[in-house]
């Protein structure tokens, strides 16, 4: 057999082109980086990441961790990142709950409920998100009364400056209550395991719901009473211009959470509906024929199969919500895009570094969310035997 020239050998050729592609791409990015550095030097613009250690000097309205004007830009970055995570976290939970409710409501056999759900979905998913954010902020929340004439319901206060609630403050002994709560949760898990085992053996499980509720409420309450009620509430008080003390959600956060969850929930609702409808009606019929009751059909047969269809597009919605939180720059909510890619960028003038960090953060947040959701997805995926 004649020996082929090596450039005609598919093995070498494939390798050659792969290596060439990597070299070209690498060279391209290296030349961009070198060019950027050369340009910045020529423009006498400071570069590098040293600025993160410099004093920031500006104030931030909502800080979850200790922060003052004397803190560094790096600290300001953390504050902003946590604010982004806060709004994304609350938004994801609210949007998921609301989305599931509306999605199931749209399939309801009750005409009115189904139509209301349809109207909700078609309204909120077809109005641009930025407009919805501005609507909640300027049309709703800024028309609330001034702090002096706050609206009151229960112990809560609502005014132009935000939503205030009494803050629970634990006294010595409160840690036992928390411990009791943890023990109760553990008890429920054990109870479920026992019930499952008994059901596998005998066909009838143990009652879980009411003993579980008893455990989770009863035990901590008992300990709370035994420890002598070690808890008091710090009530917000009007001092000077604003209420001081208690828990507070600034109106910017409220507007953002409302808009993001209501908007994203309309998409999640459609995903849930499509997921449920993707489960063949024969599955439900078969389950009913086996004698399962309606709620059991939903819980044991329909939902587990529907989740497989729901989870991947749901992940995209979570990612969208996190990224959309950067629209907060239009309000005064101090999250990453507004504090870091706004104020910090402006003060340091280091646009390349600041934008690179900001993009890297959103990218990592998205990748982490995907990873978590993919893990969950693989747990619930169809197991073939």
């Amino acid at each position, binding site marked *: 057999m004649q020996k082929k020239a090596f450039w005609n050998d598919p093995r070498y050729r494939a390798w050659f082109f792969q290596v060439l592609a990597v070299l070209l791409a690498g060279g391209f990015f290296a030349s961009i980086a070198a060019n950027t550095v050369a340009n910045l030097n020529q423009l006498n613009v400071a570069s590098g990441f040293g600025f993160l250690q410099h004093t920031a000097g500006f*104030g931030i309205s909502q800080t979850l961790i200790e922060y003052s004007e004397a803190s560094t830009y790096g600290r300001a970055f953390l504050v902003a990142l946590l604010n982004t995570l806060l709004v994304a976290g609350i938004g994801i939970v609210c949007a998921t709950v609301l989305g599931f409710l509306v999605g199931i409501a749209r399939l309801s056999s009750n005409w009115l409920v189904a139509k209301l759900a349809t109207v909700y979905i078609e309204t909120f998913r077809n109005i641009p998100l930025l407009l919805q954010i501005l609507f909640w902020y300027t049309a709703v929340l800024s028309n609330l009364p001034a702090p002096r004439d706050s609206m009151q319901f229960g112990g809560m206060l609502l005014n132009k400056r935000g939503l205030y609630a009494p803050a629970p403050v634990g006294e010595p002994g409160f840690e036992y209550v928390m411990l009791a709560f943890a023990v109760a949760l553990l008890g429920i898990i054990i109870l479920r395991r026992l019930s499952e085992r008994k059901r596998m053996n005998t066909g009838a499980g143990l009652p879980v719901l009411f003993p579980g509720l008893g455990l989770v409420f009863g035990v901590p309450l008992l300990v709370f009473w035994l420890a002598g009620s070690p808890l008091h509430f710090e009530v917000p008080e009007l001092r000077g211009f*604003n209420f001081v003390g208690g828990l507070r959600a600034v109106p910017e956060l409220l507007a953002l959470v409302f808009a993001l969850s209501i908007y994203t929930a309309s998409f999640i609702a459609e995903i849930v509906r499509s997921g449920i409808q993707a489960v063949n009606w024969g599955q439900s019929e078969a389950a009913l024929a086996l004698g399962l009751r309606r709620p059991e059909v939903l819980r044991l047969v329909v939902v587990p199969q529907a989740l497989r269809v729901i989870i991947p597009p749901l992940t995209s919605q979570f990612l969208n919500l996190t990224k959309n939180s950067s629209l907060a720059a239009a309000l005064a909510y101090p999250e990453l895009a507004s504090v870091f890619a706004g104020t910090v960028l402006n003060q340091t003038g280091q646009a390349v570094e600041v934008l690179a960090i900001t993009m890297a953060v959103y990218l990592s947040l998205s990748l982490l969310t995907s990873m978590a959701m993919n893990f969950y997805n693989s747990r619930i995926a169809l197991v073939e035997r």
Partner: protein
Amino acid sequence: MRKYLFMASMVASITFASAASATTLDDVKKKGFVQCGVSQGLKGFSSPDDKGGWTGIDVDLCRAIAAAIFGDAEKVKYTPLSAKERFTALQSGEIDVLSRNTTWALSRDTALGFDFRGVTYYDGQGFMVRKSSGVKSVRDLDGATVCVLMGTSTALTLADYFRSNNMKYEPITFEKDDEVVAAYESGRCDAYTTDSSGLYANRLTLKDQQEHLVLPEIISKEPLGAVVRHGDNQWGDIVSWALYAMLNAEELGVNSKNAEGMRESDNPEIRRLLGTEGKFGEGLGLPDDWAYNIIVKVGNYAEIFDRNVGKGSPLGIPRGLNALWTQGGIQYAPPIR
């Protein structure tokens, strides 16, 4: 999203632009106009009028630069910029000069890679509050919520002032001037702070102007001036001397109406200013009648001050610090010789 595209495109232009480029003056002459960065609308400084043109003292500086180069004050194109976008726009070369009520400060002069070229307007930071709040002095603002523009030296001065006086406050920051004013008007904030000229200008836009009080304290020095990229000294000189020509003209009593006749004046200082004597344009790379063109097409400093922010304008701000040094102010231009 548009904002991000804009920032990203400016960053991209830093990233991809070829390292070598001609001088700004050559670029400007080649394209035939000055690209001038201004605010998105601040009455008296730079704001669009109903005919689509721009007016204001910052705008007039841009027009003076164009008049010096082309003999035509209208050869300017304006780029409205938010406080946040302005520096990146200048760094990336989107604009030739930034004339946007920008405070001269050390870090901006150095780390940002800029040069400040003279002070167009001496300003200071003040506060506005509702009369009904009963606040009479900045010292009464402990615990207040304060509306401020994002990424400005104003926000930093605010932080410094409250910190050094051991007072608490909550800053609410927006990216645009009108958003800040709207938040203050809606009652989200107890006080609104910016340069005091801005307070007077923005009070004009409030519904009930008599309801609002500008507090007497001025808590900072805010020298506002034009900014250019560091390293192109010829271009920087043109920007400085466009301003100095207008100041010298006021000092010598030359204005847009009498400049024509003053060309043959006996006063050698006036003859040098108007280009009848000496070759002072050469060093700047401009024709010798550069200053004459500025004065005829735009006016002297008194004229631009009065029609934009002074007694001839709705703002009615007194000259104060911005009067000439000969009249009790601190506006002082080096001589042309």
